[in-house]
Structures are given as C-alpha cells and as structure tokens.
C-alpha cells in the first residue's frame, strides 16, 4: 500500500499513468471533502465509486461520469490518496469497457480541455438547455442541464462536449436558467448567534427560552480563562453537557464578569458527530503525524464506512472532519471560532485523533450528578466531621471523585446508570437517617428551588418531579 498527497496535476498523472499501469487494487482519492475510488485490475480501471449522488443516475454514461468526476483533480490537485489491494464496494459503478489507466488520463486531459472551452458558453454546468431551432436528437437536450445532457449521452464525453459546443455556437441551443445543484442541499451550516459575550450582558433565561421556542440546534459555550462548558441542544431540547459538571447550572444563575458565552447553531447531523470531540473512546489519541499517514486514515474511513470524527490539531488550531458511513459530511476549522472550511488537511506538524461514533447525549448523567451533589452538600451541612470524612471516603470510587466538596465523575459514566442511581439512593438513605424524611425533602426543595427556572426551560422539570416521586417516596 502506498499513500500520500497530490500537490500538482502531474503527481496525479504520474501515479495513475506510471505506478498503476500494471497494478491491481483500489486507488482512493480524497478531494475537497469527497472521495473517489478507482478499481484497477492489471492496469485497467474496471469500475469506480464516486460521491456525486446527484449525478449518478441509471442513465449516466459511466465512463463519462468517471472522467467528469475527475475534473476536480485537474482544477485543484491538492488531494490525499492511498492505493491498496482489496475488493470493491457493493455500490461501485462498473465500466462497460475497462479503460487503461493511461487512456483514462489522456481522455481526462482532453475532455477537461474541451470542457473549459464549453464553460465560456454555458457559465455553469448546471445551466439548463433550451432548443431554439429544431434538429435531430434535440429531445436529448431540451430542458436538461448541461451536466445531465453530457453525462447521459451514449457518445464519449469529449465528443458530446464538442457536439454541444457546436450546437450552442450555431444557434440550435441556448442556455436558460441555472438549476441549483443537488449537492448544495447537503450544505451544512454553522452560525454564531452570540460570540464571546460577557455573561453580565446576557439574560440567560431569555436566551434559553428563545432557543427552546425556536427549536434551536447547536451548542452554548460558557468559557472562562481556564476552560469552558459546552451545552448541546437538539431542536430546542437539552441534549448534553461537556465536561460533566454540576457547576454549569450554578454559572447560569450567576452573572460572573469573567465568563463569556457563545451560542452557535449547527446542522443536526453535524452536531451529533461534532459532539464526539468530547468522547473518551478514541481509536487514536494525539498521535503525531510522524507515525501516521493521513492518506491511509482517509482511505480507512472510506473503506470501513467509518462514522465519527477525525481531528487534526496544530498549535491552537483544530480541523475536524465529520464522517458518516465513510462519507465526509463536512470539514470544520476551529480557529477563533468554528467554521465550515474547505482548507486542505494539514500536511505536517499535527496531532491526530480518531473517534468512532457513539451517542453523546448525557443529560441523564448530568442531571443525576447535580442531584447527587445536592444531596451530598445537604448531608455535609448537617453532619459531623467524622461522618463527612466517611462520606468523602465512600464517595471516592472508580466512577466518582470528590474535589473541594463537590462530586464529579472520575471516568465516562455512560452505561453506568445503575451505579449512579445506587450511589444517589445511598446518599438519600444517609440523608434520611440524619435529617428524617420531612427535613430532607424540605432541604432538597430549598436546594433545587434556584434551578427551577432552568429546569423548566431545559424541560427537565417533569423529569425531576418524577425522580422525586419515585426515589423519595420509595
């Protein structure tokens, strides 16, 4: 297996035209967030896979589609590649006649040259064609986009491009409106609604209420000099908080000058994967580029249909690649804020993280941590030094730790609901024995009261009521 970067057209041409000329295997190319795979047998390309769903239809001329999809390689040759032996995907497109790597390159260069000439007449391949004067075969063009006309033609791509150019120049065809390409429907968005504004200038409750009503999807980041809390929302519902900390709710109640808030909206399918930046289940964690070839990582992502997050870090900058089923959904650049990026991946001096997809919702765990801390602090207030010491000892486990009087998760608590509930029941039992049921309920009511508005806004109110009924009454 070989892998690396194309930095010029010539690199691409040399690889295909030279290295592949008698090889068998798969050449994976990762370019501008899309992947193209060529299946090669004895130097002949017999099929391919391309992420151009809008162009792939049953009528498409597969060779024309392959050549057209490689135009980007000539436009912008900065791409990652990897070549390895293996079997093709199930959904790869088979060429009717295998084409040699060398002929493909020559056809590509020729078609690309002709297409550039055609572009001066059509402006965009998504321009619609209309017939001005009747001619044989005009139905193939009328009302179709240029791209559809050239890719569904039985003629070779080059001859169809030439024919179309001739028809346009001689006045048989003209271009009409432009059709927005389907690919744009997949566009993802990230928008900063509020960016780094002091908490003192924000009415947190109004903001939260507004986000809830507007079915907000995205995250709220509350930052201080030494870290930040990230609360994630999906369609207005509180989804998760990272890092796990009961302090977050306290910050919402305070108006600390040294805290800033950012509110960022993000497309739903991006958000679910983007949250993986907080995952602790990393396949690769902070591996230097000295030990890893990025091209191979991308090829692995494609081949394995990987879903998750690939992150490259260089200094204070991070590039996140959000992948779903082996397809790159978006590239994000984290540099003074997160943005959708078309930047090429770093080529050197970076650390790499690869995180497979897992559900990142944790509101249950976060809420229970808050409840644990509430009960824990009540007990501390009403117990002797000796009981406090015993409690401190009991509260420290492989799941929990106590820091300055507050309980935190020591490790990722996902999948450990029974232990969390068990510890909470234990604390309630201790509280009940020290304070009695009535006093404990009163203290709980007083302690949770300040959060009432927050719970209401976060739709956690019903949940806490239910919990109170079940746990305390039991």
């Amino acid at each position, binding site marked *: 297996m070989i892998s690396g970067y194309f930095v010029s057209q010539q690199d691409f041409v*040399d690889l295909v035209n030279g290295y592949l*000329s008698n090889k068998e295997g798969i050449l994976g190319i990762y370019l501008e967030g899309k992947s193209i795979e060529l299946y090669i047998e004895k130097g002949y390309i017999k099929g391919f896979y391309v992420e151009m769903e809008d162009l792939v239809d049953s009528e498409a001329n597969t060779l024309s589609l392959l050549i057209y999809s490689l135009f980007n390689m000539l436009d912008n040759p900065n791409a990652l590649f990897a070549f390895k032996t293996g079997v093709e995907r199930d959904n790869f497109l088979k060429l009717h006649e295998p084409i040699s790597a060398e002929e493909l390159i020559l056809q590509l*260069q020729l078609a690309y040259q002709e297409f550039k000439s055609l572009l001066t007449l059509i402006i965009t391949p998504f321009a619609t064609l209309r017939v001005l004067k009747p001619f044989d075969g005009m139905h193939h063009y009328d009302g179709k986009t240029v791209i559809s006309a050239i890719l569904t033609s039985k003629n070779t791509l080059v001859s169809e491009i030439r024919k179309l150019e001739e028809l346009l120049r001689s006045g048989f065809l003209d271009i009409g409106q432009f059709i927005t390409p389907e690919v744009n429907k997949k566009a993802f968005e990230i928008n900063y609604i509020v960016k780094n504004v002091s908490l003192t200038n924000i009415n947190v409750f109004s903001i939260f209420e507004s986000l809830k009503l507007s079915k907000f999807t995205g995250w709220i980041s509350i930052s201080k000099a030494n870290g930040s809390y990230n609360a994630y929302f999906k369609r207005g519902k509180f989804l998760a908080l990272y890092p796990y900390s009961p302090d977050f709710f306290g910050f919402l109640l305070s108006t600390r000058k040294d805290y800033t808030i950012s509110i960022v909206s993000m497309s739903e399918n991006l958000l679910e994967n983007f949250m993986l930046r907080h995952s602790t289940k990393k396949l690769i964690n902070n591996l230097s580029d000295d030990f890893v070839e990025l091209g191979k990582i991308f090829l692995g992502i494609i081949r394995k249909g990987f879903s998750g997050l690939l992150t490259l870090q260089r200094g204070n900058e991070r590039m996140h690649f959000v992948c779903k089923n082996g397809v790159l959904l978006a590239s994000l650049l984290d540099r003074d804020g997160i943005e959708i990026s078309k930047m090429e991946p770093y080529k050197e001096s970076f650390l790499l993280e690869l995180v497979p997809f897992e559900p990142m919702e944790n509101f249950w765990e976060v809420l229970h941590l808050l409840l644990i801390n509430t009960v824990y602090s009540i007990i501390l207030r009403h117990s002797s030094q000796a009981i406090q010491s015993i409690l401190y000892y009991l509260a420290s486990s492989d799941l929990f730790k106590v820091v300055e009087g507050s309980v935190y998760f020591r490790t990722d608590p996902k999948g450990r609901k029974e232990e969390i509930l068990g510890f909470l029941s234990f604390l309630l039992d201790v509280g009940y024995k020290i304070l009695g049921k009535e006093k404990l309920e009163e203290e709980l009511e007083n302690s949770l009261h300040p959060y009432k508005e927050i719970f209401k806004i976060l739709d956690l109110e019903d949940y806490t009521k239910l919990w109170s009924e079940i746990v305390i009454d039991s």
Partner: protein
Amino acid sequence: MIVDLDKKLIRLKVVYYGPAMSGKTTNLESLSKLEGLKLAKIDTKGERTLVFDFSTKKVPVSNMTAYFALYTVPGQEIYKDMRLTVLKGVDGIVFVADAQAHRLEENIRFFELLKEDLSKVGKRYEEVPKVIQYNKMDLDNVLPLEVLEEKINKDGLSSVCASAIRGKGVKEAFSMIEALLLSRLERMLG
C-alpha cells in the same frame, strides 16, 4: 520503461513526436497495417488523432520479453499537458519532421520543444534514444535531405526519409528506434 518481474515483461515506450500534421498518426496507421497492430484512438480537436497501441510485437531479450507501446503526441499548444503525459516514461523518440520547405521553422521549433518537454518529464535529452524521420518526401516542395539534416539534425541522429501515407520509411523508422532500444536493453540486462 516498465518492468513486470512476475511476468518477465519489459514495456518500452516509443513516442512519435513532431509538429502538428507532420504525419505522426499516419506513421502509426501505416505501421499498424504493416505489422497488424491494434490501435486505439483519442480524437483531439483540429488535428487528426492521437494514437497509441499496447499490443505490438514481442521480442525476447535475455530471459525476459520486451514489447513496445507506440504513441503520438498532439502537436497543438492547447494539448501541451497531454503531450507531457504521453512523454512521461518515454524510452525512445521518433521525431517526425515535415520535409516541406515552409515547415522548416516549425520543425526546428518542435525539436527544441522536445528538449524542453523531455526535461519537464524528468528525462535528459542526451540519454533518450532518438531517430528522425523526414516525412512527405514524395511531395514537390520538400527541402533536400542535406538541408534538412543540417538544419534539424544537428546532433547527427540516425535518420530516414519517408512517405508515411504510402507506407515508405515507416517500418524503417520504427526498426531504427527498435534496434537502439533493444541494444540498450541488452546492455542493461548483460
């Protein structure tokens, strides 16, 4: 040159190079008829065709088998990328000059261009075996061989007169480059 150690095959790439309409394609078409070669064609605009072929005759050399792949390059400037693609990995050149007087300057310019192109694809001009074919010698307005040799063949390369359209000098030009390449290969393989 591409060597397939498993199959013991050596593929030698011969490129027919020269100005547009000098007869490069006609050479290959004639050769294909004479040798029974299978041709593949890619139409380039304005000029005629760029032809290449993968199944030519095979020649045993040492314990391996050499075979030739023949190419022409498109002469037009807009296809310079394709010209370089074709030249990549070239083992031998047949420079097809148009012997007509009015095309002398173009022949000379293309010969210089050959040197530049070879350099661009990582080849040293001096190290690539070359022959010159003076084509269209059957026409009335051609320059005398001495003049052509003096003006174009300044390096004293092997050369041959031809009328590719009549099949004359075609096989000879190929045989000359074939001999150069095979003797070189034999030296390399001991």
